[in-house]
């Protein structure tokens, strides 16, 4: 067993990656679903196994793909942070598949379902690979694997708008991905290596040689990567693709994407700023945090949340809320401190669980009343009491009421803000939470204060509620007993911040 365990880092990617084409060949949808679920569950188990493995280690675990030592060979790095992200992503993916039973049958065209599962697993493989790889070019490849499969997943929504939404996403996503590619190319040009740790070392050396004069190529590489990642992460004002994509995708896909895609990209953003270019340089000399990221984050927090108030459907509302929540994530990073990154990782987990849970609830609502238009939700408190209650639970999690995970992460965010003396920002964070109260309560009023329609029948999809309740339950559990996760996030942030110079330099040589 320990032999197998040693290969966990690569199995994490290989299991879903190899199951996917298999599913495309199996045209039997029942078998495909069972196999997909099995594969995702296995991946989740591996993901949590990696968390445990990473917890036992002071330094990140390194896995040499094919036995080639880095920096020539491709290295997979299981740091505390990447293991954390990977575990969350794989678990949500498994729950998303669990959700997809009846929903997917209804929403995805008959005869395409095995392809749906294949694309789903491909996307999962891409996301996990992106999080765990220690090779810059690999990041791009996995980014594109996940993106391409996401576009097709979005296009499987049951309205024709899904096509245009997917197309827009494809255009913007490809531009973002290509920007990242340009950034990686320029970075390679300067450093002559693609290994993340190696890049970090050499960038550090360059910055040490001439701390005052900015290396222009490095700066351009940085800008390209940030803009590219910002596009994929939907940082305001680069968020235009997100509402359409989340709203038109099948419900299970929305749940999956909301909990995973932006989270992995956020992890890339952390690595790019903190590891590649060095936190001291990015947040110190460049003032990227306070002068660029912070204003954009705050604008995103407010504009996303305010836009969420005016949306006609639940999915669009939750999508705009995600734009706002991404603002919190990037705000946490913008402090450029360990505490900030810790808060960011916590919010990553909290929001992933909460938002995925809410999208699962939406799936149950769609199954029940046949629509997620807010005006059709009247009297849902009476018609589907458990579903309505679950929505409220998720909603208060978004607001950050104590006892939910959202509170823990928001608290960490506040502490990070105070620690770096950004008092006003702390106030703004709370103010924007109040906007969340408005959009959540708008739904509550419709569900509990408007009389249910007399003639309409509601169907109950209990199976959809299983993942929803698991996710929201996890949110509450983490809200009440946060210390393990908080500790994990603290260690992960600490590990990310270790000066590249304090790690043993890798043997050089290799790339031109």
């Amino acid at each position, binding site marked *: 067993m320990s032999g197998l365990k040693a290969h966990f880092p690569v199995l994490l990617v290989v299991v879903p990656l190899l199951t996917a084409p298999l599913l495309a060949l199996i045209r039997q949808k029942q078998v495909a679903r069972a196999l997909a679920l099995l594969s995702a569950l296995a991946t989740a188990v591996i993901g949590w196994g990696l968390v445990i493995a990473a917890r036992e280690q002071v330094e990140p675990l390194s896995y040499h793909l094919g036995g080639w030592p880095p920096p020539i060979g491709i290295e997979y790095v299981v740091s505390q942070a990447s293991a954390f992200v990977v575990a969350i992503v794989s678990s949500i993916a498994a729950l998303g598949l669990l959700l997809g039973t009846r929903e997917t049958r209804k929403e995805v065209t008959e005869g395409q379902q095995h392809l749906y599962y294949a694309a789903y697993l491909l996307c999962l493989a891409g996301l996990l690979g992106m999080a765990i790889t220690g090779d810059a*070019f690999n990041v791009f*490849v996995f980014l594109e694997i996940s993106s391409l499969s996401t*576009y097709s997943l979005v296009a499987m929504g049951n309205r024709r708008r899904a096509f245009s939404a997917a197309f827009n996403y494809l*255009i913007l996503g*490809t*531009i973002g991905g290509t920007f990242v590619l340009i950034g990686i190319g320029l970075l390679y040009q300067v450093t002559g290596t693609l290994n993340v740790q190696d890049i970090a070392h050499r960038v550090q050396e360059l910055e040490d040689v001439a701390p005052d004069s900015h290396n222009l190529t490095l700066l351009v590489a940085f800008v390209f990567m940030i803009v590219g990642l910002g596009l994929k992460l939907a940082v305001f004002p680069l968020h235009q693709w997100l509402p359409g994509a989340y709203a038109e995708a099948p419900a299970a896909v929305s749940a999956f994407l909301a909990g995973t895609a932006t989270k992995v990209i956020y992890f890339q953003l952390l690595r790019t700023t903190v590891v590649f270019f060095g936190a001291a340089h990015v947040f110190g000399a460049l003032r990227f945090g306070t002068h660029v990221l912070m204003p954009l984050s705050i604008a995103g927090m407010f504009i996303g949340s305010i836009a969420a108030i005016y949306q006609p459907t639940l999915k669009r509302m939750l999508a705009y809320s995600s734009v706002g929540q991404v603002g919190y994530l990037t705000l946490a990073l913008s402090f450029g401190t360990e505490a900030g990154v810790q808060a960011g990782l916590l919010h990553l987990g909290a929001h992933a669980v909460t938002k995925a849970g809410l999208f699962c609830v939406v799936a149950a609502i769609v199954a029940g009343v046949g629509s997620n*238009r807010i005006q059709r939700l009247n009297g849902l408190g009476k018609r589907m009491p458990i579903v309505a209650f679950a929505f409220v639970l998720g909603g208060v999690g978004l607001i950050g009421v104590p006892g939910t995970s959202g509170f823990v992460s928001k608290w960490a965010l506040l502490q990070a803000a105070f620690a770096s003396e950004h008092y006003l920002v702390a106030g703004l964070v709370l103010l924007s939470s109040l906007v969340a109260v408005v959009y959540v309560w708008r739904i509550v009023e419709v569900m509990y204060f408007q009389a249910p329609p007399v003639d309409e029948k509601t169907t109950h999809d209990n199976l959809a509620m299983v993942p929803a309740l698991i996710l929201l339950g996890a949110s509450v559990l983490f809200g009440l007993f946060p210390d393990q996760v908080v500790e994990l996030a603290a260690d992960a942030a600490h590990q990310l911040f270790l000066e590249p110079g304090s790690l043993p330099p890798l043997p050089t040589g290799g790339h*031109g």
Partner: protein
Amino acid sequence: MTLATHWHYWVVIALMMTGLHIVIARRNYVKKLMGLSIFQVSVIMLYVTMGKVAGGTAPVYVMEGEGHDAVPNLDVVYSNPVPHVLMLTAIVVGIATMALGLALVVRIKESYGTVEDDVVIEKDRAEEESLES
């Protein structure tokens, strides 16, 4: 950095800007995809030119000696093969993107009857208003 020694960068930049401009300015979905393709090609060019080492030859060992005694000549300057190899993957990604994009355009044409961005938006809005009322 002068135009003479770094002209290939200017080619890359020109292509890149052309591609981006088409993606943003054109309303036609097929044209958008064309622009996207040009944009991606410019990046491939960037990488390929990056690997070229001045005075270098193709990255295949120049052998000295005959038969089994042949040894590579390490004094020869070789171009860097890594960016070229990377671009193989990028080309595959580009083709996949293009294929998926075109497939989506086909489905859009089937369901909306048009591939013009503004018409699609207009139809979407009309549909939304009919649902609202």
